[in-house]
Protein backbone atom coordinates (compact mmCIF):
# COMPACT_ATOMS: atom_id res chain seq x y z
CA UNK A 1 0.00 0.00 0.00
CA UNK A 2 1.24 3.43 -0.70
CA UNK A 3 1.23 5.93 2.08
CA UNK A 4 1.64 9.64 2.26
CA UNK A 5 3.75 11.96 4.37
CA UNK A 6 3.46 15.69 4.71
CA UNK A 7 5.70 17.09 2.04
CA UNK A 8 4.76 14.28 -0.32
CA UNK A 9 3.18 15.75 -3.39
CA UNK A 10 0.22 13.43 -2.97
CA UNK A 11 -0.31 14.77 0.49
CA UNK A 12 -2.28 17.84 -0.40
CA UNK A 13 -5.11 19.10 1.70
CA UNK A 14 -7.35 17.01 3.83
CA UNK A 15 -8.95 14.05 2.19
CA UNK A 16 -12.28 15.78 2.56
CA UNK A 17 -11.25 18.57 0.23
CA UNK A 18 -12.38 18.19 -3.32
CA UNK A 19 -10.72 19.02 -6.54
CA UNK A 20 -7.19 17.75 -6.19
CA UNK A 21 -5.60 18.88 -9.40
CA UNK A 22 -2.80 17.54 -11.45
CA UNK A 23 -4.68 14.37 -12.16
CA UNK A 24 -2.52 13.26 -15.00
CA UNK A 25 -2.65 13.31 -18.70
CA UNK A 26 -1.55 16.12 -20.90
CA UNK A 27 -3.14 19.46 -20.36
CA UNK A 28 -3.52 18.91 -16.64
CA UNK A 29 -3.61 22.18 -14.76
CA UNK A 30 -0.23 23.30 -13.58
CA UNK A 31 0.40 22.46 -9.97
CA UNK A 32 2.67 25.21 -8.74
CA UNK A 33 3.42 23.52 -5.46
CA UNK A 34 4.53 20.32 -7.15
CA UNK A 35 6.64 22.36 -9.50
CA UNK A 36 8.22 24.18 -6.58
CA UNK A 37 8.98 20.87 -4.90
CA UNK A 38 10.42 19.55 -8.14
CA UNK A 39 12.71 22.53 -8.59
CA UNK A 40 13.94 22.25 -5.03
CA UNK A 41 14.70 18.58 -5.31
CA UNK A 42 12.11 17.75 -2.67
CA UNK A 43 10.64 15.04 -4.85
CA UNK A 44 13.88 13.13 -5.25
CA UNK A 45 13.35 9.43 -5.04
CA UNK A 46 9.59 9.70 -5.20
CA UNK A 47 7.31 8.54 -7.99
CA UNK A 48 6.04 12.07 -8.44
CA UNK A 49 9.47 13.22 -9.51
CA UNK A 50 9.31 11.34 -12.77
CA UNK A 51 5.77 12.44 -13.38
CA UNK A 52 6.49 16.11 -12.89
CA UNK A 53 9.64 15.88 -14.97
CA UNK A 54 7.60 14.28 -17.73
CA UNK A 55 5.03 17.04 -17.64
CA UNK A 56 7.64 19.74 -17.72
CA UNK A 57 9.23 18.03 -20.69
CA UNK A 58 6.01 17.38 -22.62
CA UNK A 59 3.50 20.03 -21.63
CA UNK A 60 4.28 23.59 -22.70
CA UNK A 61 2.20 24.98 -19.88
CA UNK A 62 4.24 23.13 -17.34
CA UNK A 63 7.49 24.00 -19.04
CA UNK A 64 6.65 27.68 -19.10
CA UNK A 65 5.44 27.63 -15.52
CA UNK A 66 8.59 25.84 -14.47
CA UNK A 67 10.76 28.46 -16.12
CA UNK A 68 8.78 31.29 -14.55
CA UNK A 69 8.93 29.67 -11.15
CA UNK A 70 12.65 29.07 -11.41
CA UNK A 71 13.24 32.69 -12.35
CA UNK A 72 11.00 33.94 -9.56
CA UNK A 73 12.69 31.62 -7.10
CA UNK A 74 16.06 33.11 -7.95
CA UNK A 75 14.76 36.60 -7.36
CA UNK A 76 13.18 35.63 -4.06
CA UNK A 77 16.35 33.93 -2.88
CA UNK A 78 18.16 37.15 -3.65
CA UNK A 79 15.65 39.17 -1.66
CA UNK A 80 15.93 36.76 1.26
CA UNK A 81 19.71 37.00 1.10
CA UNK A 82 19.43 40.77 1.27
CA UNK A 83 17.21 40.47 4.31
CA UNK A 84 19.63 38.03 5.87
CA UNK A 85 22.42 40.53 5.38
CA UNK A 86 20.30 43.26 6.94
CA UNK A 87 19.61 41.08 9.94
CA UNK A 88 23.28 40.25 10.29
CA UNK A 89 24.26 43.90 10.03
CA UNK A 90 21.77 45.05 12.61
CA UNK A 91 21.76 42.29 15.10
CA UNK A 92 18.96 42.34 17.56
CA UNK A 93 20.25 40.89 20.76
CA UNK A 94 17.91 39.77 23.44
CA UNK A 95 16.27 42.91 24.82
CA UNK A 96 17.16 43.62 28.45
CA UNK A 97 13.57 43.42 29.59
CA UNK A 98 13.12 40.01 28.00
CA UNK A 99 16.45 38.89 29.43
CA UNK A 100 15.37 39.96 32.88
CA UNK A 101 12.11 38.12 32.47
CA UNK A 102 13.89 34.95 31.41
CA UNK A 103 16.32 35.18 34.29
CA UNK A 104 13.47 35.53 36.71
CA UNK A 105 11.53 32.66 35.21
CA UNK A 106 14.53 30.35 35.30
CA UNK A 107 15.41 31.38 38.81
CA UNK A 108 12.00 30.25 39.89
CA UNK A 109 12.11 27.06 37.90
CA UNK A 110 13.20 24.82 40.70
CA UNK A 111 16.31 22.91 41.41
CA UNK A 112 16.28 19.99 39.08
CA UNK A 113 14.54 18.74 35.98
CA UNK A 114 11.25 17.38 37.27
CA UNK A 115 9.76 15.35 34.44
CA UNK A 116 7.68 18.32 33.29
CA UNK A 117 4.45 17.18 34.81
CA UNK A 118 3.59 20.81 35.21
CA UNK A 119 4.33 21.54 31.58
CA UNK A 120 2.16 18.70 30.50
CA UNK A 121 -0.76 19.72 32.62
CA UNK A 122 -0.54 23.18 31.11
CA UNK A 123 -0.81 21.58 27.71
CA UNK A 124 -3.84 19.59 28.81
CA UNK A 125 -5.42 22.74 30.11
CA UNK A 126 -4.79 24.48 26.84
CA UNK A 127 -6.31 21.58 24.96
CA UNK A 128 -9.44 21.80 27.06
CA UNK A 129 -9.67 25.50 26.46
CA UNK A 130 -9.04 25.17 22.76
CA UNK A 131 -12.68 25.53 22.04
CA UNK A 132 -13.14 22.20 20.37
CA UNK A 133 -15.43 20.80 23.01
CA UNK A 134 -18.44 22.34 21.37
CA UNK A 135 -18.52 19.80 18.61
CA UNK A 136 -19.85 16.48 19.74
CA UNK A 137 -20.39 13.69 17.39
CA UNK A 138 -22.57 10.70 18.08
CA UNK A 139 -20.52 7.64 17.54
CA UNK A 140 -22.45 5.01 15.75
CA UNK A 141 -19.65 2.92 14.46
CA UNK A 142 -18.98 -0.71 14.98
CA UNK A 143 -15.91 -0.01 17.06
CA UNK A 144 -17.96 1.10 20.00
CA UNK A 145 -16.92 1.38 23.56
CA UNK A 146 -13.89 2.95 25.14
CA UNK A 147 -11.68 0.41 26.71
CA UNK A 148 -8.65 1.85 28.34
CA UNK A 149 -5.88 -0.64 28.52
CA UNK A 150 -2.92 -0.43 30.83
CA UNK A 151 0.52 -0.59 29.36
CA UNK A 152 2.45 -3.46 30.79
CA UNK A 153 5.39 -5.47 29.70
CA UNK A 154 4.63 -7.83 26.90
CA UNK A 155 1.39 -7.76 24.97
CA UNK A 156 -1.54 -5.54 25.58
CA UNK A 157 -3.20 -6.46 28.84
CA UNK A 158 -6.60 -7.01 27.38
CA UNK A 159 -7.65 -9.18 30.24
CA UNK A 160 -7.50 -6.20 32.59
CA UNK A 161 -10.00 -4.16 30.64
CA UNK A 162 -13.02 -5.45 32.50
CA UNK A 163 -11.97 -3.89 35.74
CA UNK A 164 -11.42 -0.58 34.03
CA UNK A 165 -14.71 -0.27 32.27
CA UNK A 166 -16.63 -0.07 35.49
CA UNK A 167 -19.48 -2.15 34.38
CA UNK A 168 -19.96 -0.40 31.14
CA UNK A 169 -21.33 -2.51 28.36
CA UNK A 170 -19.38 -4.79 26.16
CA UNK A 171 -16.04 -3.90 24.79
CA UNK A 172 -15.58 -3.01 21.19
CA UNK A 173 -16.17 -5.72 18.69
CA UNK A 174 -12.78 -4.97 17.33
CA UNK A 175 -10.41 -7.48 15.87
CA UNK A 176 -7.71 -6.38 18.31
CA UNK A 177 -9.69 -7.82 21.17
CA UNK A 178 -10.71 -11.00 19.46
CA UNK A 179 -7.59 -13.10 19.78
CA UNK A 180 -6.70 -11.95 23.30
CA UNK A 181 -5.94 -14.95 25.42
CA UNK A 182 -8.50 -15.64 28.05
CA UNK A 183 -10.48 -12.57 27.29
CA UNK A 184 -14.16 -12.90 26.86
CA UNK A 185 -15.48 -9.38 26.87
CA UNK A 186 -15.21 -9.08 23.15
CA UNK A 187 -17.20 -12.21 22.76
CA UNK A 188 -20.32 -10.86 24.30
CA UNK A 189 -21.96 -10.49 20.99
CA UNK A 190 -23.00 -7.45 19.08
CA UNK A 191 -21.61 -4.12 20.05
CA UNK A 192 -23.72 -1.21 20.99
CA UNK A 193 -23.13 2.35 19.96
CA UNK A 194 -21.68 4.15 22.90
CA UNK A 195 -22.31 7.72 23.73
CA UNK A 196 -19.62 9.93 25.13
CA UNK A 197 -18.53 8.93 28.55
CA UNK A 198 -15.67 9.53 30.86
CA UNK A 199 -12.52 7.49 30.78
CA UNK A 200 -9.86 7.24 33.38
CA UNK A 201 -6.50 6.16 32.06
CA UNK A 202 -4.99 3.86 34.64
CA UNK A 203 -1.52 4.50 35.91
CA UNK A 204 -0.28 0.98 35.69
CA UNK A 205 3.30 -0.16 35.89
CA UNK A 206 5.47 1.21 33.19
CA UNK A 207 3.70 4.51 32.92
CA UNK A 208 5.76 7.36 34.16
CA UNK A 209 4.83 8.72 37.51
CA UNK A 210 4.32 12.18 36.13
CA UNK A 211 1.29 11.05 34.15
CA UNK A 212 -1.18 13.82 33.52
CA UNK A 213 -4.31 13.89 35.54
CA UNK A 214 -7.10 12.14 33.65
CA UNK A 215 -9.73 14.42 32.31
CA UNK A 216 -13.15 13.97 33.76
CA UNK A 217 -14.78 15.47 30.71
CA UNK A 218 -16.76 13.13 28.52
CA UNK A 219 -14.99 11.91 25.41
CA UNK A 220 -16.26 12.94 22.05
CA UNK A 221 -14.70 10.00 20.34
CA UNK A 222 -15.22 6.48 21.51
CA UNK A 223 -12.05 4.69 20.59
CA UNK A 224 -10.24 1.67 21.79
CA UNK A 225 -6.95 2.72 23.33
CA UNK A 226 -3.97 0.46 23.01
CA UNK A 227 -0.37 0.59 24.03
CA UNK A 228 1.06 -2.27 22.08
CA UNK A 229 4.67 -1.18 22.22
CA UNK A 230 4.90 -1.59 18.47
CA UNK A 231 7.38 0.40 16.46
CA UNK A 232 5.47 0.62 13.22
CA UNK A 233 6.83 0.99 9.76
CA UNK A 234 4.84 1.89 6.67
CA UNK A 235 4.51 -1.77 5.77
CA UNK A 236 3.42 -2.90 9.21
CA UNK A 237 0.70 -0.34 9.90
CA UNK A 238 -1.94 -2.70 8.61
CA UNK A 239 -1.32 -4.82 11.67
CA UNK A 240 -3.26 -2.35 13.75
CA UNK A 241 -6.17 -2.54 11.38
CA UNK A 242 -6.21 -6.29 11.30
CA UNK A 243 -5.77 -6.64 15.01
CA UNK A 244 -2.48 -8.41 14.82
CA UNK A 245 -0.15 -5.76 16.24
CA UNK A 246 -0.30 -7.08 19.74
CA UNK A 247 -0.25 -10.69 18.78
CA UNK A 248 3.02 -10.62 16.92
CA UNK A 249 4.91 -13.59 18.25
CA UNK A 250 8.24 -11.87 17.72
CA UNK A 251 7.46 -9.20 20.29
CA UNK A 252 8.02 -11.40 23.25
CA UNK A 253 8.29 -10.46 26.91
CA UNK A 254 11.26 -8.17 26.41
CA UNK A 255 9.08 -5.63 24.70
CA UNK A 256 7.69 -3.22 27.24
CA UNK A 257 4.38 -1.90 26.06
CA UNK A 258 4.70 1.40 27.85
CA UNK A 259 3.35 4.74 26.89
CA UNK A 260 6.11 6.67 25.13
CA UNK A 261 6.92 9.75 27.20
CA UNK A 262 6.13 12.17 24.44
CA UNK A 263 2.60 10.83 24.14
CA UNK A 264 1.65 11.15 27.79
CA UNK A 265 -0.15 14.39 27.09
CA UNK A 266 -2.44 12.55 24.71
CA UNK A 267 -3.55 10.06 27.33
CA UNK A 268 -5.68 12.85 28.72
CA UNK A 269 -9.15 12.51 27.22
CA UNK A 270 -9.50 16.15 26.29
CA UNK A 271 -6.12 16.21 24.62
CA UNK A 272 -6.88 13.02 22.76
CA UNK A 273 -10.22 14.43 21.67
CA UNK A 274 -8.55 17.50 20.26
CA UNK A 275 -6.15 15.29 18.40
CA UNK A 276 -8.83 13.05 16.95
CA UNK A 277 -10.86 16.07 15.96
CA UNK A 278 -7.84 17.45 14.14
CA UNK A 279 -7.32 14.13 12.41
CA UNK A 280 -10.98 14.12 11.46
CA UNK A 281 -10.46 17.41 9.69
CA UNK A 282 -7.77 15.74 7.66
CA UNK A 283 -9.25 12.28 7.18
CA UNK A 284 -12.99 12.48 7.76
CA UNK A 285 -14.46 9.43 9.35
CA UNK A 286 -14.65 7.60 12.60
CA UNK A 287 -11.55 6.69 14.53
CA UNK A 288 -11.88 3.26 16.00
CA UNK A 289 -8.55 2.33 17.53
CA UNK A 290 -5.63 4.39 18.74
CA UNK A 291 -2.27 2.90 19.60
CA UNK A 292 0.14 4.93 21.71
CA UNK A 293 3.15 3.55 19.94
CA UNK A 294 6.06 4.48 17.74
CA UNK A 295 6.49 5.01 14.03
CA UNK A 296 9.95 4.56 12.61
CA UNK A 297 11.37 5.04 16.05
CA UNK A 298 9.53 8.17 17.05
CA UNK A 299 6.65 8.34 19.47
CA UNK A 300 3.43 8.43 17.51
CA UNK A 301 -0.27 7.97 17.96
CA UNK A 302 -1.41 5.49 15.35
CA UNK A 303 -5.10 5.76 14.56
CA UNK A 304 -7.42 3.65 12.46
CA UNK A 305 -10.03 5.81 10.78
CA UNK A 306 -13.02 4.41 8.98
CA UNK A 307 -14.16 6.94 6.40
CA UNK A 308 -17.71 8.16 6.52
CA UNK A 309 -18.21 7.32 2.87
CA UNK A 310 -17.50 3.68 3.40
CA UNK A 311 -14.13 3.65 1.70
CA UNK A 312 -11.36 1.46 2.95
CA UNK A 313 -10.00 2.40 6.32
CA UNK A 314 -7.02 4.70 6.79
CA UNK A 315 -4.25 4.32 9.28
CA UNK A 316 -3.06 7.74 10.36
CA UNK A 317 0.20 8.32 12.20
CA UNK A 318 0.14 11.45 14.31
CA UNK A 319 2.95 12.99 16.30
CA UNK A 320 2.94 14.16 19.90
CA UNK A 321 1.65 17.60 19.03
CA UNK A 322 -1.56 16.27 17.54
CA UNK A 323 -4.39 18.46 18.66
CA UNK A 324 -2.11 21.31 19.61
CA UNK A 325 -0.54 21.91 16.24
CA UNK A 326 -3.07 20.66 13.73
CA UNK A 327 -3.01 16.90 13.59
CA UNK A 328 0.79 16.72 13.38
CA UNK A 329 0.31 13.91 10.93
CA UNK A 330 3.50 12.08 10.00
CA UNK A 331 2.17 9.44 7.66
CA UNK A 332 -1.08 8.00 6.51
CA UNK A 333 -2.07 5.17 4.29
CA UNK A 334 -5.25 3.60 3.10
CA UNK A 335 -5.27 -0.04 3.93
CA UNK A 336 -7.67 -2.84 3.72
Amino acid at each position, binding site marked *: MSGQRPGDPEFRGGLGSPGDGATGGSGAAVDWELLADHLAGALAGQPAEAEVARRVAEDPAWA*TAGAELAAADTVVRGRLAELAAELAAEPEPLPPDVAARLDEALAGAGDTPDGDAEVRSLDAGRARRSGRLGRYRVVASVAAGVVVLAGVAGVVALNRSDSRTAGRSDAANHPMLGPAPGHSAAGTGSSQPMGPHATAPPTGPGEESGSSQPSAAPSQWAVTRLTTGTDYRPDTLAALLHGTASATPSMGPHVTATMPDDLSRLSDSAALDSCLTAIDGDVPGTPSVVDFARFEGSAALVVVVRPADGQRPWVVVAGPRCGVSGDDVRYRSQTG
Partner: protein
Amino acid sequence: MRRESPVGAGVGAADTDRRSDPELLRAHVGGDRGAFDTLVRRHRDRLWAVALRTLADREEAADALQDALLSAYRKADRFRGESAVTTWLHRIVVNACLDRARRRQARPTVPLPTGTAGEPVATGPAVADRDTALTVRAALAQLSVEQRAALVLVDLYGYPVGEAAEILDVADGTVKSRCARGRARLAVLLGELGNRGGGSGVESTSAAGSGPPGDRHGGEEES
Protein backbone atom coordinates in the same frame (compact mmCIF):
# COMPACT_ATOMS: atom_id res chain seq x y z
CA MET B 1 27.31 27.16 5.04
CA ARG B 2 26.20 28.61 8.30
CA ARG B 3 25.79 32.31 8.23
CA GLU B 4 27.12 33.25 11.65
CA SER B 5 25.40 36.13 13.21
CA PRO B 6 27.61 38.58 15.01
CA VAL B 7 25.48 37.96 18.01
CA GLY B 8 25.96 34.23 17.75
CA ALA B 9 27.04 31.80 20.34
CA GLY B 10 29.61 32.38 22.97
CA VAL B 11 30.65 35.93 22.24
CA GLY B 12 29.39 37.41 25.45
CA ALA B 13 32.18 38.93 27.48
CA ALA B 14 30.81 37.31 30.58
CA ASP B 15 31.19 33.79 29.26
CA THR B 16 34.46 32.69 30.78
CA ASP B 17 33.19 29.22 31.52
CA ARG B 18 35.32 26.73 29.67
CA ARG B 19 32.86 23.88 29.85
CA SER B 20 31.34 22.65 26.64
CA ASP B 21 27.61 22.80 26.03
CA PRO B 22 27.09 19.11 26.81
CA GLU B 23 29.16 19.50 29.97
CA LEU B 24 27.04 22.41 31.08
CA LEU B 25 23.86 20.50 30.42
CA ARG B 26 25.13 17.52 32.37
CA ALA B 27 26.18 19.80 35.19
CA HIS B 28 22.71 21.29 35.24
CA VAL B 29 21.11 17.87 35.44
CA GLY B 30 23.55 17.08 38.21
CA GLY B 31 22.36 20.03 40.23
CA ASP B 32 24.82 22.78 39.27
CA ARG B 33 22.56 25.76 39.61
CA GLY B 34 24.51 28.15 37.43
CA ALA B 35 25.20 25.79 34.58
CA PHE B 36 21.92 26.19 32.72
CA ASP B 37 22.13 29.93 33.00
CA THR B 38 25.61 29.90 31.51
CA LEU B 39 24.40 27.69 28.68
CA VAL B 40 21.45 29.93 27.95
CA ARG B 41 23.53 33.06 27.97
CA ARG B 42 25.76 31.58 25.31
CA HIS B 43 22.93 30.97 22.89
CA ARG B 44 20.02 33.15 23.81
CA ASP B 45 20.71 35.94 21.36
CA ARG B 46 20.57 33.54 18.44
CA LEU B 47 17.57 31.75 19.87
CA TRP B 48 15.85 35.09 20.35
CA ALA B 49 16.61 36.09 16.76
CA VAL B 50 15.16 32.86 15.39
CA ALA B 51 12.07 33.17 17.59
CA LEU B 52 11.56 36.78 16.61
CA ARG B 53 11.84 36.12 12.88
CA THR B 54 9.65 33.04 13.09
CA LEU B 55 6.85 34.72 14.99
CA ALA B 56 7.33 38.28 13.68
CA ASP B 57 6.03 39.55 17.00
CA ARG B 58 8.18 40.58 19.93
CA GLU B 59 5.76 39.72 22.68
CA GLU B 60 4.94 36.34 21.21
CA ALA B 61 8.62 35.64 20.67
CA ALA B 62 9.40 36.54 24.27
CA ASP B 63 6.63 34.29 25.53
CA ALA B 64 7.73 31.44 23.29
CA LEU B 65 11.34 31.79 24.32
CA GLN B 66 10.39 31.75 27.97
CA ASP B 67 8.20 28.68 27.54
CA ALA B 68 10.95 26.98 25.60
CA LEU B 69 13.76 27.69 28.01
CA LEU B 70 11.69 26.58 30.96
CA SER B 71 10.88 23.41 29.11
CA ALA B 72 14.54 22.87 28.27
CA TYR B 73 15.45 23.52 31.88
CA ARG B 74 13.07 20.84 33.05
CA LYS B 75 13.69 18.30 30.31
CA ALA B 76 17.45 18.57 30.29
CA ASP B 77 17.73 15.08 31.66
CA ARG B 78 16.16 13.75 28.47
CA PHE B 79 18.86 15.06 26.20
CA ARG B 80 20.69 12.02 24.93
CA GLY B 81 23.39 13.65 22.90
CA GLU B 82 21.89 12.53 19.60
CA SER B 83 22.27 16.06 18.33
CA ALA B 84 24.24 19.13 19.25
CA VAL B 85 22.98 20.93 22.32
CA THR B 86 22.31 24.01 20.22
CA THR B 87 20.24 21.98 17.79
CA TRP B 88 18.28 20.62 20.73
CA LEU B 89 17.73 24.11 22.11
CA HIS B 90 16.72 25.40 18.71
CA ARG B 91 14.24 22.57 18.34
CA ILE B 92 12.58 23.39 21.63
CA VAL B 93 12.43 27.08 20.82
CA VAL B 94 11.15 26.63 17.27
CA ASN B 95 8.56 24.12 18.44
CA ALA B 96 7.38 26.57 21.07
CA CYS B 97 7.07 29.18 18.33
CA LEU B 98 5.15 26.85 16.05
CA ASP B 99 2.81 25.79 18.84
CA ARG B 100 2.13 29.38 19.76
CA ALA B 101 1.52 30.44 16.17
CA ARG B 102 -0.77 27.51 15.48
CA ARG B 103 -2.82 28.13 18.58
CA ARG B 104 -3.27 31.70 17.50
CA GLN B 105 -4.43 30.59 14.08
CA ALA B 106 -6.41 27.59 15.20
CA ARG B 107 -9.66 29.14 16.33
CA PRO B 108 -11.57 30.24 13.28
CA THR B 109 -15.32 30.11 13.49
CA VAL B 110 -15.35 29.47 9.79
CA PRO B 111 -13.01 26.74 8.66
CA LEU B 112 -10.10 28.02 6.66
CA PRO B 113 -8.96 26.23 3.56
CA THR B 114 -6.16 24.04 4.77
CA GLY B 115 -2.98 22.93 3.22
CA THR B 116 -0.95 19.97 4.27
CA ALA B 117 -1.34 18.64 7.77
CA GLY B 118 -4.09 21.09 8.65
CA GLU B 119 -2.04 24.23 8.35
CA PRO B 120 -4.32 27.14 7.52
CA VAL B 121 -3.54 29.15 4.46
CA ALA B 122 -2.67 32.67 5.43
CA THR B 123 -5.30 35.11 4.35
CA GLY B 124 -4.86 38.78 3.81
CA PRO B 125 -3.65 40.84 0.89
CA ALA B 126 -3.01 37.88 -1.25
CA VAL B 127 -1.55 39.23 -4.37
CA ALA B 128 0.46 42.22 -5.37
CA ASP B 129 1.78 43.70 -8.50
CA ARG B 130 5.14 45.38 -8.55
CA ASP B 131 3.83 48.75 -7.49
CA THR B 132 2.28 47.57 -4.30
CA ALA B 133 4.59 44.69 -3.61
CA LEU B 134 5.11 43.94 0.02
CA THR B 135 8.47 44.16 1.65
CA VAL B 136 10.13 40.84 2.18
CA ARG B 137 9.55 41.05 5.91
CA ALA B 138 5.85 41.74 5.44
CA ALA B 139 5.57 38.98 2.87
CA LEU B 140 7.28 36.53 5.22
CA ALA B 141 4.70 37.34 7.84
CA GLN B 142 2.00 36.25 5.39
CA LEU B 143 3.34 32.74 5.11
CA SER B 144 2.20 29.84 7.20
CA VAL B 145 4.35 29.47 10.26
CA GLU B 146 5.69 26.15 9.01
CA GLN B 147 6.97 27.66 5.78
CA ARG B 148 8.26 30.73 7.54
CA ALA B 149 10.09 28.70 10.16
CA ALA B 150 11.83 26.69 7.43
CA LEU B 151 12.83 29.80 5.50
CA VAL B 152 14.04 31.59 8.64
CA LEU B 153 16.33 28.71 9.47
CA VAL B 154 17.60 27.90 5.99
CA ASP B 155 17.47 31.11 4.00
CA LEU B 156 17.85 33.74 6.69
CA TYR B 157 20.18 32.06 9.13
CA GLY B 158 21.95 29.64 6.85
CA TYR B 159 21.27 26.40 8.68
CA PRO B 160 21.91 23.40 6.45
CA VAL B 161 18.77 21.58 5.40
CA GLY B 162 19.74 18.59 7.52
CA GLU B 163 20.08 20.61 10.67
CA ALA B 164 16.88 22.51 9.97
CA ALA B 165 15.19 19.13 9.56
CA GLU B 166 16.49 18.08 12.97
CA ILE B 167 15.30 21.29 14.52
CA LEU B 168 11.87 21.02 12.93
CA ASP B 169 11.75 17.26 13.45
CA VAL B 170 10.76 16.56 9.87
CA ALA B 171 12.41 14.92 6.89
CA ASP B 172 14.92 16.78 4.74
CA GLY B 173 12.50 16.65 1.83
CA THR B 174 9.85 18.31 3.93
CA VAL B 175 12.20 21.18 4.72
CA LYS B 176 13.01 21.58 1.05
CA SER B 177 9.34 21.49 0.16
CA ARG B 178 8.37 24.06 2.77
CA CYS B 179 11.17 26.36 1.67
CA ALA B 180 10.35 25.97 -2.00
CA ARG B 181 6.63 26.45 -1.57
CA GLY B 182 7.27 29.31 0.82
CA ARG B 183 9.49 31.02 -1.70
CA ALA B 184 6.90 30.47 -4.41
CA ARG B 185 4.30 32.11 -2.24
CA LEU B 186 6.69 34.94 -1.46
CA ALA B 187 7.20 35.33 -5.19
CA VAL B 188 3.50 35.96 -5.64
CA LEU B 189 3.34 38.31 -2.67
CA LEU B 190 6.36 40.23 -3.90
CA GLY B 191 4.96 40.55 -7.37
CA GLU B 192 7.63 38.36 -8.92
CA LEU B 193 5.28 35.73 -10.21
CA GLY B 194 2.62 37.79 -11.82
CA ASN B 195 -0.90 38.55 -10.76
CA ARG B 196 -2.70 35.28 -10.58
CA GLY B 197 -6.00 36.68 -9.47
CA GLY B 198 -8.12 34.48 -7.32
CA GLY B 199 -7.52 30.81 -7.02
CA SER B 200 -3.84 30.82 -7.75
CA GLY B 201 -2.33 27.44 -7.09
CA VAL B 202 0.43 29.07 -5.13
CA GLU B 203 -1.90 30.61 -2.62
CA SER B 204 -4.42 27.88 -2.35
CA THR B 205 -2.28 25.13 -1.07
CA SER B 206 -4.80 22.43 -1.59
CA ALA B 207 -5.92 23.17 -5.11
CA ALA B 208 -4.28 22.86 -8.43
CA GLY B 209 -2.97 25.70 -10.49
CA SER B 210 -4.94 28.60 -11.68
CA GLY B 211 -6.99 28.54 -14.82
CA PRO B 212 -6.28 26.80 -18.09
CA PRO B 213 -2.83 27.07 -19.55
CA GLY B 214 -2.31 30.39 -21.26
CA ASP B 215 -4.43 32.25 -18.78
CA ARG B 216 -1.43 32.88 -16.67
CA HIS B 217 -0.04 35.52 -18.91
CA GLY B 218 -2.81 37.91 -18.15
CA GLY B 219 -1.76 40.56 -15.71
CA GLU B 220 1.91 39.77 -15.66
CA GLU B 221 4.30 42.48 -14.79
CA GLU B 222 4.23 44.92 -17.61
CA SER B 223 3.61 47.88 -15.41
